[in-house]
């Protein structure tokens, strides 16, 4: 016999494991045992298989791998004796789950055991089937289970009923076979069978409307009678729980009645009396009774309207809510939440109590209550509720603050009766829990502030005060800094003073002080500091007297290790130093941010295709102005940020902007300018060292444009781009401030005098690809290609993917396409850059592959492009 396997007994092993003082010691014991078990498995040692598996289960529970024992389970199950089968099935349920292939091997054994003469072996098989069967096994063994539902012994019938539940969950189609046997179980007297039978019927009803109808017709009355009997039954020690006979059966009956009564007046009517009896007679001083009441209230609220019963139910919930037991209060909140759709008036009556629950010390109750309050808020009660919640924010636990803050912000935003109230509340939230406020929320606040022109002064003063009081909350700091930058003059002059405001005296240098403090504050992160730099630049133009001081503060960041700050500092310094004449227009107040665009963006309702050419936008002059203005602004800001060519910097930009406004959005025609912007960026990126310079020029350019166009009645894309050539004069001017003058670069691709003719790279019945070429004068080897994919069919192409390959002497850099779906008859663009190391000797060639889907069907097109202009 194997020297290992004769070793320890199960209890010895457990003792040895428990005696281990360290985790390493425990591992050593387990390792030794596992080795012994493996050896014993290899020898196919029958005497100890039983014990080995028991050991393995214990080891498994400790979290060690035990897969090598899986086959042992199967062997034990296949052996004839009851003890072997018992432990084998237990091991099967513990060590395996339904997703393991090995499980399929057991189907046959299960089938045999379900036909065994020993009913306890049948029971073991049913138990295993019920706990871990997969869909396949369910199909194979459903007939056996169906048969066992009529077995003579109730112990087997109840197990078969639960197996049937599992089978229906795995394969709902099989519910048909079980409908009749399940209905038969409802007449049982044995509680175990009745409980499982009722449950099986409930489960069948949820998957099969026909069965629901059948049970409703045939069984409702019988079930009502069963419930009546059980509710009125005298004391029976076997099923008694705290003076109630079988609360489990009560609850299951009530649940099935709920399913039957829902949406059916007749069935609902049939059960009214018994529900009223259960609701009014059940003792509520013990958990078991409350569990029944809870279930009963749910049933009353779900079945068809009966005024009197509803009142009874709501009263029970009221009692629950004022209960001292936390569990009861928790379920009351839970139930009120579900009743909200049925009878919100009744729930509103408990508002004060629910509000108290938000302040409970129990996180589970807090969460429930907050959720409920959130759903109770409407225009009429938003003010007091928001006030309460915000007050509570001050004292709430850290863990809860995030959830609470999000909910308050959402309520305040959704139901604010007036803007000033909204701004006030948001200010409170920011000061209290600004660190928990999400990006889009404070972006939204900025959008609202810019739109409320009469509140600019009020907002900036309030924010200034708040910032003075505390600079711990990052988002408060950001919003305040942004507003101070924009509205510094209103802050100092007390413009637009409201009656309710306390007068405040802020000097110009106070404003600079507070921004300076922010830059220097250790908790401010890069975004905040960068925003503060912009604010300073704006202040320097608003208050020329502070200009020198601002310059020195900005200058302090010239040596910053953070590239972003260093660059801003350098650029802004030269703006202040050398370009007094354009500075004021450069840092003009941001135009009003478009609320619709922002909320649209926020909701993620971005239309799939935006590239519907600029033509249509010209037609609607007024509409466009509004959309174009923020856009241009965006561009300017975004180009400010471009230096670091990473995606994070792009996000960062968006932050700055105070919104996701940058993205092309619902307005047709907005696509192109942003595209142009992207082109500029791309160009910039590829240039290498002088990038920041170009960048600066880009930004100025954008700004100039925005200035010029602010009042223009039409500012469509096309005009924008055609105007851009007017910029160069001032642009050049700016550039010289930055060091070695880079060659002037035109801004839009259209202006680049297409020295190389465009080509049609590919054309089929369904798709056309055009290439436009541009080259940087300083790097003639590289060519920028803008590929335009035009859809020639009325179908939408989704999952559009263009791939290209080039020979070794070429280098290809492919940027993402403007969209991965190609609208009907529309087009998308994709830029790429090809560097030809053999320029002049060899032409560019390219193999390309296109993949897309039409109505979910994959389409693949391939081709070679040989018609590139030779000189590229």
């Amino acid at each position, binding site marked *: 016999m194997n020297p290992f396997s004769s070793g320890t007994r199960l209890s010895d092993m457990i003792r040895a494991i428990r005696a281990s003082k360290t985790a390493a010691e425990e591992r050593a014991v387990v390792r030794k045992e596992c080795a012994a078990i493996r050896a014993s498995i290899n020898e196919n040692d029958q005497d100890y298989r039983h014990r080995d598996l028991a050991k393995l289960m214990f080891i498994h529970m*400790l979290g060690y791998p035990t897969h090598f024992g899986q086959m042992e389970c199967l062997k034990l199950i296949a052996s004839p004796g009851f*003890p072997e089968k018992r432990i084998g099935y*237990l091991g099967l349920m513990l060590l395996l789950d339904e997703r393991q292939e090995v499980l399929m091997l057991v189907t046959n054994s299960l089938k045999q055991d379900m036909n065994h003469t020993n009913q306890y072996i049948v029971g073991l098989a049913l138990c295993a089937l019920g706990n871990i069967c997969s869909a396949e096994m369910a199909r194979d063994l459903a007939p056996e289970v169906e048969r066992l539902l009529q077995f003579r012994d109730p112990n087997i019938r109840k197990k078969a009923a639960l197996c049937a*539940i599992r089978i229906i969950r795995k394969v709902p189609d099989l519910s048909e076979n079980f409908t009749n046997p399940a209905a038969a179980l409802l007449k049982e007297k044995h509680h175990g069978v009745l409980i499982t039978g009722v449950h099986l019927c409930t489960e069948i009803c949820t998957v099969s409307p026909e069965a629901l109808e059948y049970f409703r017709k045939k069984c409702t009355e019988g079930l009502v009678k069963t419930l009546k009997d059980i509710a009125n039954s005298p004391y029976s020690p076997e099923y008694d729980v705290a003076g109630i006979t079988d*609360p*489990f*059966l009560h609850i299951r009956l009530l649940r099935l009645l709920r399913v039957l009564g829902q949406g059916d007046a007749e069935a609902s009517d049939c059960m009214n009396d018994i529900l009223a009896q259960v609701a009014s007679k059940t003792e509520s001083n013990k958990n078991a009774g409350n569990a029944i009441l809870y279930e009963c209230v749910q049933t009353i609220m779900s079945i068809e309207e009966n005024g009197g019963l509803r009142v009874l139910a709501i009263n029970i919930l009221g009692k629950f809510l004022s209960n001292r037991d936390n569990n009861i209060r928790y379920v009351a909140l839970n139930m009120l939440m579900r009743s909200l759709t049925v009878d919100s008036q009744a729930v509103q009556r408990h508002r004060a109590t629910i509000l108290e629950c938000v302040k409970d010390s129990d996180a589970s109750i807090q969460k429930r209550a907050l959720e409920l309050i959130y759903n109770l808020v409407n225009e009429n009660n938003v003010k007091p509720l928001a006030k309460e919640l915000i007050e509570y924010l001050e004292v709430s636990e850290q863990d809860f603050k995030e959830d609470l803050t999000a909910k308050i912000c959402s309520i305040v935003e959704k139901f604010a009766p007036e803007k000033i109230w909204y701004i006030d509340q948001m200010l409170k939230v920011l000061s209290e829990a600004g660190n928990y406020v999400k990006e889009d929320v404070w972006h939204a606040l900025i959008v609202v502030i810019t739109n409320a022109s009469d509140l600019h002064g009020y907002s900036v003063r309030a924010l200034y005060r708040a910032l003075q009081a505390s600079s711990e909350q990052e988002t408060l700091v950001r919003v305040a800094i942004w507003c101070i930058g924009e509205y510094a003059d209103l802050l100092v002059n007390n413009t637009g003073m409201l009656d309710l405001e306390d007068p405040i005296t802020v000097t110009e240098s106070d404003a600079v002080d507070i921004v300076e403090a922010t830059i220097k504050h250790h908790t401010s992160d890069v975004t905040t500091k960068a925003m503060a730099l912009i604010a300073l630049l704006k202040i320097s133009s608003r208050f020329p007297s502070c200009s020198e001081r601002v310059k020195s503060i900005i200058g302090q960041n010239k040596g910053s290790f953070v590239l972003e700050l260093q660059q801003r500092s350098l650029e802004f310094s030269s703006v202040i130093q050398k370009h007094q004449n354009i500075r004021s227009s450069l840092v003009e107040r941001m135009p009003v941010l478009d609320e619709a665009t922002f909320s649209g963006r926020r909701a993620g309702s971005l239309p799939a295709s935006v590239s519907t050419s600029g033509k249509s936008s010209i037609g609607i002059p007024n509409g466009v102005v509004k959309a174009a203005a923020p856009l241009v602004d965006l561009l300017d800001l975004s180009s400010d940020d471009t230096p670091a060519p990473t995606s994070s910097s792009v996000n960062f930009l968006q932050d700055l902007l105070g919104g996701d406004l940058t993205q092309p959005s619902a307005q047709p025609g907005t696509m192109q300018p942003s595209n142009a912007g992207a082109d500029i960026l791309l160009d910039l990126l590829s240039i290498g060292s002088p990038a920041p310079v170009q960048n600066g020029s880009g930004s100025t350019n954008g700004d100039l444009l925005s200035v010029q166009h602010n009042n223009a009645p039409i500012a469509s894309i096309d005009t924008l781009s055609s105007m851009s050539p007017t910029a160069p004069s001032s642009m050049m001017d700016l550039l010289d401030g930055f060091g070695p003058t880079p060659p002037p670069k035109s801004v839009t691709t259209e202006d680049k005098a297409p020295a190389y003719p465009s080509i049609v790279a590919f054309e089929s019945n369904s798709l056309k690809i055009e290439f436009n070429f541009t080259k940087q004068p300083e790097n003639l080897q590289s060519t920028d290609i803008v590929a335009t994919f035009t859809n020639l069919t009325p179908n939408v192409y989704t999952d559009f993917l263009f791939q290209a390959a080039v020979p070794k002497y070429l280098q290809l850099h492919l940027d993402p396409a403007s969209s991965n779906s190609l609208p009907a008859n529309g087009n998308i663009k994709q830029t790429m850059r090809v560097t030809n190391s053999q320029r002049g000797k060899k032409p560019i060639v390219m193999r390309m592959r296109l993949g897309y889907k039409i109505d979910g069907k994959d389409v693949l097109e391939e081709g070679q492009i040989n018609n590139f202009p030779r000189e590229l």
Partner: protein
Amino acid sequence: MIHFVLLVSRQGKVRLTKWYSPYTQKERSKVIRELSGVILSRGPKLCNFVEWRGYKVVYKRYASLYFCMCIDEDDNELEVLEIIHHFVEILDRYFGSVCELDLIFHFHKAYYILDELLIAGELQESSKKTVARIISTQDQLVEAAKEEAGSISNIIAQATK
């Protein structure tokens, strides 16, 4: 339905786990770690329900052991508390004032009892007496088989002497 049953000691040691929904081994240990962290740290007076990943975990402490059951959001939490108590009472009756050590050294017995109480994450039997009877019958079957095996091996042993 009950998705899983978990018994954890106050020290965070797992004493019993039963999974009625498919969880991989990795998920299982993650769930156990996560939940025992949450539940063991909750104060004594708080409610017995924890909301967790869209489910609810109903737990109750008996001496040094936490009995936890994970259920769907719209299940009856109070009933699950009763089921837990029901289970504990049956264990108590079987072992004779059960303690943690009983469940460690006879963990398989605890599983057998649980299997007579729940199948497919649903309650199977509301009578403690019935469960006790079925378990003891099965235990007797095992004993009888052992004796028989013992006697046969005795006979063989004597015959080969």
